[in-house]
């Protein structure tokens, strides 16, 4: 299986020094950036629009269109989101660690396209090594005059600051990230009115792009939008990186073309299930995506559209594979626990609801489940994500709360019998449980 590579090509071909300035420049590096400095905002925005590049952070929105929405006021900022924290996702880590100059160059292009002179990369705190690599690249680029005052000998100034997070998944949400970068709690902002394109960092117009999205830019400049669009038959152009983890023989990051089937991804790319076990289910697009099961989805294509049609998403491109030995209640609990732990605590349904869901699942796992718990799970979930549909109708400020609903829905939809089995094996099986009177005391 030799798929065309874009963003991982250099690191695959030059495994020992793809991170260095020497190797980067020897393999065509910074040519695109140099060229972009001579181009206008309109030219660059149109080029990226035409390439069909979609944001790779999970939302899959046209990168060029996003740029075109940037409000005209200046100063404006470019913020690159390297806070990848969705369970199952580790692709940006590899891009930062192994090809950091690709990111620096992509940022120069994005900055020029948006007439930005101050840019930031926000890297999650758990990634000190990628941060060091990227910082090294930034220092080298400054030394060469590719960053700083008058870059590439022109009169264009561009500052680039590497900024570390400190352990908060929610900072992957772009407005939470901006709050964090401003030195605040990483609480998502209200949209409206705080759309980053108009009121972003320091309430100034701000572009927020993902690491993988940015990494594609030098290639689009060098090889053209038609080439990039031609890499895919799908509306989703270019390639995409997939992080595969769980019970597969070959976990890891893979840069893939669009349109493979799940069977190809799991059995060919990732080498199949460990120990020859049976595939039970997988999370198709990061921890917040509703699960897929082999009976229904194994031969469906791995595209944004197909996932959406089946009530899930490709999201951040992370798949987590579970074999037949998996306790699905345990897996669901672990996913819900993540969101409960990572809830920022701002809005009521997420703060209280995700924890409540986790408490119920833990109780079921610990042999204290009640018959009423399945309905209770669904109703609590419904109060976070109205109607339990996909995409969610959230009662919350941001999508984190409904993300905790996905595993609960998936569990009950596909593995209700396992939940019932846990409850049935409980010492006090079948009890209706107790309730606490509110009005009587109040």
């Amino acid at each position, binding site marked *: 299986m030799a798929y065309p590579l874009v963003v991982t090509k250099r690191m695959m071909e030059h495994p020992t020094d793809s991170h260095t300035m020497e190797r980067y420049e020897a393999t065509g590096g910074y040519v695109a950036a140099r060229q972009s400095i001579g181009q206008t905002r309109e030219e660059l925005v149109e080029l990226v629009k035409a390439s069909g590049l979609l944001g790779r952070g999970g939302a899959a929105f046209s990168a060029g269109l996003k740029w075109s929405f940037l409000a005209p006021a200046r100063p404006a900022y470019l913020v690159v989101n390297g806070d990848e924290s969705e369970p199952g996702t580790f692709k940006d880590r590899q891009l930062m660690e192994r090809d950091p100059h690709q990111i620096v160059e992509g940022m120069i292009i994005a900055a020029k396209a948006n007439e930005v002179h101050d840019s930031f990369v926000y890297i999650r705190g758990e990634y000190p090594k990628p941060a060091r690599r990227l910082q090294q690249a930034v220092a080298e680029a400054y030394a060469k005059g590719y960053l700083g005052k008058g870059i590439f000998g022109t009169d264009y100034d561009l500052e680039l600051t590497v900024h570390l997070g400190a352990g908060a998944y929610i900072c992957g949400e772009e407005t939470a990230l901006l709050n964090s970068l401003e030195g605040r709690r990483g609480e998502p902002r209200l949209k409206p009115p705080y759309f980053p394109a108009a009121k972003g960092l320091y309430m100034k117009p701000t572009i927020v792009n993902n690491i993988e999205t940015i990494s594609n830019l030098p290639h689009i400049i060098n090889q053209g939008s038609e080439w990039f669009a031609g890499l895919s038959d799908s509306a989703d152009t270019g390639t995409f990186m997939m992080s595969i983890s769980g019970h597969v023989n070959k976990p890891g990051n893979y840069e893939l073309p669009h349109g493979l089937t799940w069977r190809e991804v799991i059995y060919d790319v990732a080498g199949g299930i460990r120990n020859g076990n049976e595939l039970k289910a997988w999370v198709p697009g990061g921890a917040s995506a509703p699960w897929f099961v082999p009976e229904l989805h194994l031969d469906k294509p791995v595209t944004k559209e197909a996932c959406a049609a089946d009530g899930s998403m490709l999201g951040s491109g992370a798949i987590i594979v579970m074999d037949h030995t998996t306790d699905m209640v345990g897996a669901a609990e672990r996913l819900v626990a993540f969101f409960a732990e990572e809830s920022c605590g701002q809005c009521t349904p997420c703060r209280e609801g995700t924890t409540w869901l986790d408490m119920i699942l833990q109780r079921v796992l610990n042999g204290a489940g009640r018959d009423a718990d399945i309905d209770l799970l669904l109703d609590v979930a419904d*109060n976070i994500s109205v109607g339990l549909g996909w995409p969610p109708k959230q009662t919350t400020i941001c999508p984190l709360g409904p993300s905790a609903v996905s595993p609960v829905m998936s569990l009950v939809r596909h593995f209700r019998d396992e939940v019932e089995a846990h409850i049935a094996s409980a010492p006090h099986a079948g009890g209706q449980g107790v309730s606490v009177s509110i009005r009587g005391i109040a």
Partner: protein
Amino acid sequence: MSDPLVKITINGVAHHVPGHSVLIKTAEDLGTYIPRFCWHPRMAPVGMCRMCLVEIEGPRGVMLVPSCTTPIHDEMIVHTETDTVKKAQEGVLEFLLANHPLDCPVCDRGGECPLQDQTMAYGPGESRFVEEKRHYEKPIPISDLVMLDRERCILCARCTRFSDEISGDPLIEFMDRGNSTQVNTFTEEPFASYFSGNTVQLCPVGALTASPYRFRARPWDLRVIGSTCTVCSAGDSISVHASQNEVLRYLGVDNDATNHGWLSDKCRFGFEYLNSDDRLTTPLVRGADGEFAEASWSEALGLVAEKLTAIVTDHGPQAVAGLGGSRGTNEDAYAFSKFMRTVVGSGHIDSQMDDGLNPQLLAALSGKGLIGDLEHAKTILLWAADLKEEHPTLYLRVRRAAQELGAKLIIVHPRRTGLDDRATFKFGYKPGDGGRVLSELMAGQGEYAAARAALSEGPVVAIVGRTGLTESPVLAESVAAFARDLPNASVLPIVRRSNTYGALDMGLAPNLLPGRAGIGSPGCANLEATWGGLPTKAGYDAAAIATGIDEGSIKGVILLGADPVADMPNGLDLTAPDFVVAIDLFLTESSSQADVVFPALGFAEKEGTVTNLEGRVQKVNRVVPGPGQAREDWSILDDLAARMGKPMGFASAEAISKEIAHVAPAYESVTWDLVTWDHPDGAVVPVVAERSPLEYVPVVSSTSSTPSKSEFVLHSARTMYDNGVMCQQGPSIGKLAPGAAAYLNPDDAERLGVVDGDLVRVASTNGQGDLPVVIDSSLTDGVVYVPFNQPGGPRFGSDLDVSVVKL
């Protein structure tokens, strides 16, 4: 400036309303109440509690949105009562109750708790939450005034937002994250905010409670009456809550014109003195042994009438002086004014304690503005006392203007002020050097160029006063004169003491007569007829009265709620006059030296009107009867007048107010009905030609400075909490006075060889004191700042020049 109307349909009924508002507010105005916890009309919406979710029809179908963050727009279709909305709201309520303790019977909020009310109205009867609730230590004191119970908290962020966005003291914050999120203070730093009580009032549950009110009453047992706060001169609207004849709390009432519902803690908790055991309850007469003895009213009144009559007979009416009148009602002040002028016949009367401004500037400044002008100001010039210390709710309004409304703020002050963090320009200077600063600012020279340019952009609001007690009032007047002529300018000359403006409007100043008339002003025919003649020349002000006492020309002194010994910067020698009578609530430094003391009723014990710094007349009301035999000031003076053979004929406060409306030109047509019913925010009495016999136009007279030869000059200013009797008689706030200290610039401290906490001796010609050093980098070299009137603190008078020596 009205917004274009938009069409909005709520639950099938179409309305046309102005287009700039959030849905929750518009719906409420139209009669549809949407439940909420975090939203508050005076704070930016955060959409956190999610209680106000409603459905709107949008291009992508029906959406569930928080109505507090959703702006209305034309052709908006809103549903607030669908099954989806009800389920979402019930769901939020269930989430909020999941971890909320059911301790309503022992919770101070019980009976006035939004969470309790909404649970009764919308909530489920039972909770399905059977897991262990969150536990925290409860309650914890987060300041001297506020207790925090984190188990009750529903994390609406009203308190944290208030402290951050409104009062500018972000000392309570959300800590931790997710389900562990809690409100708290920094580990080592209490919620020491002058405005902390507002968070208690804002709290929609019983998480924040006020120590002075905890477990004192149930809401349904309280008698509540609206009134006007008289702690400072801003005229904040409050409600007074009493039970069993005792005032138990004040709450802020939202008045668009003044306080926006906020109060300082000094105001909110400043009711405690009313309930003090030290209140005077009977007249006191000093006996031959020099000690006070309780006396009957008739005995005491008779004695005072006799003594005053004798002084007038022996030395002429000008041998009697009156001080005070700024702490009572306008009716009390008018009675004092009339008593002094018509019964005694003396013009030596002053309601300011030599610490204020020219009375004509305060009462009758041409071009005087309103607090509300701050809402539209482009540039604000603040050259006055630190508003945070002396005018706390005005401070909040200026903060809002600079922070939320984008006004440029120029501050000129010798020291850091509470608004420095919002200042576009801040200029420090050495007291005594203000004239030079003013002339350079006027000319836009050097460092003042940009600020001067900003002042060319109107509307300009100038808040002008004395930055400290050692600064000449002439400087403030010169600043006012400069500011008046700025584009579209309104000027607010400010002094702190509660009803000073009302007292001046009633003529309690040597050069003013009731109704903003000067001596000899035309248009005072009614006054002349009622009083049987008018004074023809100005009397002594407080400073001249002090001199008169020292020189022996003043033989008798009448104090009306005044404590000049403590309040006058240079003090007052009350041992010298032959006879001193005081009308007061307490034995103060001054009244304790009187020969006769009459017990007076205080705030909330009497009714009347008061006038704030804008000239806004508002009502104060009676809620409790007051202690013992205490009486209204006017009634005591009325009795005295009768006994001196010149009855004033006052029957009630309301009757006096009718006389004021009749005789005082500016107050013509100001009736109680007007200020009570037609104008809940009070009635402004503007300085305009048709109403004011006097339109005072100040002139710039102070544009140079004579540099002091002294090594140090003194900056002395009041702090919110001090040694004032109303502060010290309140157990909650009395202890909050910062205490006396000598604040020095780091360079000066280094030169003197002192560090924080070392003792220095500060001395002026009037006094000296040994004070601990506090390093204060906001001071200019050669300035020592000593807070005025602190418990146990020294008194330096208004001398600029002082010496500072290391001990």
